[in-house]
């Protein structure tokens, strides 16, 4: 490692010298006397050379990487906005090669064992008949899904991805705390931790001989493809997510991108002829393999939980018919019960003829009378867990219970003993973590991953280390706060350097997914375009009014402002009865409400909330930069719901116009011109056209003679400059209408929007054999009508206001029909419901 002697002299071993491990627990970095463990020395040496300031700055680099990539974790019921930035400690957890070899062997055996148990439980149930496994563990377990009995897992892999939570006891032994067999989370976070940390410490990472993760994901992806029952030469593999409100949605989007799989929600899929299809804009496209992140009981409202909106009706039947593979197979959650831990040693001997290599934390299943009595008698030493918890139920720490809660718990156990287990409480090992510039010991849990393949099992050489926020923290979970660490599994041998970030040759094929936009996504993008435009229109409209208020000292508003208020009233943005004879103070109040009151329809905040929702559900389609700008837009709009001065409101509106311009610019400059972009821009153009028409219609009604509102209308339509350059005089009706309706070189005009929409309509996909002729027809009609307008004749005639109003109304009707036609053709994907 290249370090200058200068650095090492200014920071002599300050980094680790002050670290004080806790007594009577195992510390990962130091042995009893505070001596560094040998496998840590290369890293600690390198970091010492870097020095405190540099290490902290590198840590900041890693954190910035996470922030900028929008690495988040959703916390349920968090009032602060439920998205939290993922926390990564700059110091990794190191695991020595020999130790990892033992863990790896234990994990391989364990995945194999659990797979065998799953096969039996959903098949012959010999283990239950022979009582090698207490029947209650399966038959009273809500995760045993009876509709899945007899389904054969595709590829004969009953457990594709298995996650194991490990802890280390004071004597240095690793123990299994829990198995995750349903839809294990965290592998994607482990990956993103690795990318962040290896970029922040590239030399240290290279010099420490750390095993790489990429080949694990490559093998997982290749194995997934082989599971396809049909289309085996070119299977369509998708990642099924519960959606953006799931706690680990970031990870779903990240893994989907990393593995090159479409990210799909249940609503995007449909079952026809016992086969699964994605509903794309062009029609149905078959799905062969589903990597699911939806809990199995939620996967099919027909056969599993009827109240689920996350699944696909008929999915179980499609599996039963052998037409789709799901990983992990539906029903695999049954072996997650902690009660199983008590029986694994015996089952391992029986099924594999081997001793269990990796022991589980001592577990007593209360369904056995003597075990129950033992747990009850020594409650202080136990963590009591529900054996069949389906949600997130907190465990009970025996020694933390007061007499009353203790009695209540014991009574509950007695009423359903099979539903509880007692687990020995063991002190977790610690590793050094940064807190306020200091290294302090923090308890940790290590989650590791095993993937089943056709030639045995592959263990991810690494994992997700989670660190408790507290020194004596008994529970370590991301949901309850805390941080994470990258996990460096060291090797004596050469390091494989496969990476999926620049895909390697064998699996590359030409992607033509750009055209395969699920209808749901197109729907959200269409509305994203509409809301982004609506927000801009609203802001411009309010800005025109607020700017006339700013600097106004008279109590009586000038006539132009009064007319503007009537315009707002006609647009239903201002109370009708107050639009006349009103004080500036009142106007101020109402206009400000229109800026920040989220409950007010059409207010800036209300439209922003709609925009946020549409953007959030398709966020995997945005680049990190786009998302960052969007976050800034939201932060800027966060006004205190109290009185703010008019000048400040004006400044705010100006800022928002700029934020929005940046957001729009990013979206326009970064999106592939596929159907997704087309629908987004279609929404934007349609909204702009409709808004312009509505403003004109209202202005003509309020001010038929065009005395007061022409100037503000030009301002609202951002066309003041053009008008001035062309006419050098006060606006006249004919000139304004020409500029705003007919001039197809003005990007704010109706003609411009119609031309753009017509071009888009020609690019709209056909659904099945149905071409979007209706949309094209409506647009051609509107363009022809607009083209035939003789403005001078129209405005010169005595019936000018009526004739113009009629034209505007026609345009409005055509566009409304256009919106309906589009919605009906492409977005008709009503929610399924159970009867």
């Amino acid at each position, binding site marked *: 490692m290249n370090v200058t002697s200068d650095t090492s002299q200014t920071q002599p071993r300050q980094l680790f010298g002050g670290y004080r491990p806790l007594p009577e627990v195992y510390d990962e970095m130091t042995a009893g006397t505070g001596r560094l463990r040998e496998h840590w020395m290369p890293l600690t040496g390198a970091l010492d050379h870097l020095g405190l300031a540099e290490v902290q700055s590198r840590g900041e680099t890693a954190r910035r990487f996470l922030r900028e990539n929008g690495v988040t974790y959703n916390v349920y019921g968090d009032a602060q906005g439920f998205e939290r930035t993922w926390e990564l400690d700059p110091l990794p957890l190191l695991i020595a090669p020999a130790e990892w070899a033992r863990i790896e062997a234990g994990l391989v055996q364990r995945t194999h064992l659990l797979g065998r148990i799953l096969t039996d439980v959903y098949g012959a149930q010999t283990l239950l008949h022979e*009582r090698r496994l207490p029947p209650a563990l399966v038959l009273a377990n809500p995760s045993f899904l009876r509709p899945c009995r007899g389904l054969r897992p595709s590829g004969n892999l009953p457990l594709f991805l298995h996650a194991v939570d490990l802890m280390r006891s004071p004597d240095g032994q690793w123990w299994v705390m829990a198995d995750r067999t349903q839809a294990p989370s965290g592998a994607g976070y482990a990956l993103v931790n690795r990318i962040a940390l290896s970029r922040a410490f590239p030399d240290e990472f290279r010099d420490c001989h750390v095993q790489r993760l990429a080949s694990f994901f490559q093998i997982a992806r290749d194995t997934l493809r082989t599971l396809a029952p049909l289309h085996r030469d070119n299977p369509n593999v998708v990642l099924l997510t519960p959606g953006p409100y799931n706690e680990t949605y970031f990870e779903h989007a990240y893994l989907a991108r990393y593995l090159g799989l479409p990210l799909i929600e249940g609503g995007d899929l449909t*079952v*026809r002829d016992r086969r699964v299809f994605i509903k794309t804009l062009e029609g149905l496209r078959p799905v062969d393999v589903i990597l699911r992140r939806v809990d199995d009981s939620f996967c099919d409202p027909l056969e599993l939980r009827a109240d689920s909106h996350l699944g696909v009706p*008929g999915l179980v039947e499609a599996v039963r018919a052998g037409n789709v593979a799901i990983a992990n197979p539906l029903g695999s959650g049954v072996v997650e019960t902690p009660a199983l831990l008590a029986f694994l040693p015996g089952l391992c001997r029986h099924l594999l003829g081997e001793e269990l290599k990796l022991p589980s934390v001592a577990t007593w299943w209360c*369904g056995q009378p003597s075990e129950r009595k033992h747990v009850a008698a020594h409650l202080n030493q136990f963590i009591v867990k529900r054996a069949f918890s389906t949600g997130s139920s907190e465990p009970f720490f025996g020694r933390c219970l007061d007499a009353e809660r203790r009695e209540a718990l014991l009574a509950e156990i007695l*009423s359903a003993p099979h539903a509880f287990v007692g687990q020995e409480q063991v002190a977790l090992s610690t590793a050094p973590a940064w807190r306020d510039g200091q290294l302090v010991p923090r308890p940790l849990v290590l989650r590791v991953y095993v993937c089943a393949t056709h030639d045995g099992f592959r263990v991810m050489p690494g994992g997700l280390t989670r660190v408790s926020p507290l020194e004596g923290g008994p529970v370590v979970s991301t949901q309850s706060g805390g941080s994470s660490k990258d996990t460096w599994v060291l090797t004596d041998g050469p390091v494989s350097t496969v990476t999926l970030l620049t895909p390697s040759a064998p699996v590359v094929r030409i992607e033509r997914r750009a055209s395969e936009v699920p209808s749901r996504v197109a729907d959200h993008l269409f509305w994203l375009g509409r809301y982004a435009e609506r927000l801009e229109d609203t802001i411009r409209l309010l800005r025109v009014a607020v700017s006339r208020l700013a600097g106004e000292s008279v109590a009586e508003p000038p006539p132009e402002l009064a007319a503007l208020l009537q315009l707002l009233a006609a647009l239903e943005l201002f109370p009708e009865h107050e639009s006349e004879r009103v004080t500036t103070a009142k106007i101020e109040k109402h206009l400000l409400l229109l800026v920040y009151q989220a409950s007010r329809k059409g207010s800036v905040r209300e439209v922003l909330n709609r925009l946020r929702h549409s953007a959030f559900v398709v966020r995997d389609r945005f680049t990190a930069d786009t998302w960052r700008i969007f976050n800034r837009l939201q932060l800027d709009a966060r006004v205190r719901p109290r009185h703010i001065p008019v000048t400040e409101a004006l400044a705010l509106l100006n800022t928002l116009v700029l934020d929005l311009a940046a957001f729009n610019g990013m979206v326009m400059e970064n999106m592939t011109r596929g159907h997704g972009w087309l629908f987004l821009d279609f929404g934007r153009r349609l909204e702009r056209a409709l808004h312009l028409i509505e403003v004109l219609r209202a202005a003509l009604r309020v001010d038929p003679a065009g005395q007061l509102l022409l100037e503000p209308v030009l301002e609202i339509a951002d066309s003041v400059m053009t008008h001035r350059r062309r006419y050098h005089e006060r606006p006249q009706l004919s000139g304004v209408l020409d500029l705003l309706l007919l001039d197809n070189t003005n990007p704010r005009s109706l003609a411009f929007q119609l031309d753009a929409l017509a071009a888009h309509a020609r690019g709209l996909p056909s659904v099945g054999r149905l071409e979007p002729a209706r949309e094209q027809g409506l647009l051609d009609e509107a363009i022809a009508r607009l083209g035939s307008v003789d403005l001078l004749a129209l405005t010169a005639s005595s019936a000018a206001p009526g004739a113009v109003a009629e034209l505007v109304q026609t345009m409005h009707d055509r566009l409304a029909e256009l919106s309906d036609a589009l919605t009906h053709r492409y977005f008709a994907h*009503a929610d399924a419901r159970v*009867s």
Partner: protein
Amino acid sequence: MLYEVRHRTSYDYDHDVSLSHHLVRLTPRTLERQRCLERVIESFPVPSTFGEHSDHFGNTTTFLTIEGAHRRLEIIARSRVEVFPVAVPTIPDQTPAWESIRDRCDAEARGAPLEPVEFVFPSALVPRRGQFADYAQPSFTAGRPVLEAALDLTARLHTDFAFDPNATTVVTPVLEFFKARRGVCQDFAHLMIACSRSLGLPARYVSGYLETAPAPGQPKLAGADASHAWVSLWCGDAGWVDLDPTNNLMPSDRHLTVAWGRDFGDVSPVRGVLVGSGSHQLRVAVDVTPVAGANDPDSPGASR
């Protein structure tokens, strides 16, 4: 007795439904005392997909997909079923003491076959509660033969609870019925199962039919003209014995068994998920007609 069964389920939707999937359990089981001679399940519009499998409990389960816009769906199941009186009726006072059944089915014990053990545990619609055990306890006195005790419980349920088609819906929790004391066969069956399981006894939910028009002189049983439900209790070596708490009798050749499971949720005759908006109206009509020429034997269990 030979019966012809016609079970018609119709949905009227107030909006077009473009796609619907249905899971149907309308095929009578073949048992020692029952033979299903023929049966047909049809739907209008005709299904685009039709599949069948035997579920975890051995019930024949039919999967139907209806594609294309429709506002009305009719599912008709027809069958010919021959039912015999129970050949060797289980003598109530010769069944084992109820505690021995409980102990054999204990979660840890190895004494019972696996099948009944499944029906000891609570299920989604049938919780185990102390209050159900308390209610059942007067019938289950120490050492009492299990079937004798169960018949006593059946009689008490029949007396203490009223049959009332308007009091509950298919989703009424059993605890609510226990408090309100009015309901239909589904509620009676769920409560009896809850009582049994709360004592540690295995009991399952049976769905089926009753003869619609009884022979002259015989009372029409409650629950005819629709799907009926009753209970089956495991009595040790005597096996499963059916009990109808709604009618306070032991089913014989006037009860046709279609399916069984832990509770209604496992055997729901027609369950569907549809894609479309709006609401729907559901109608069910059941006809169970004895086929002319068949004998009309006096069945010991049918008298009240």
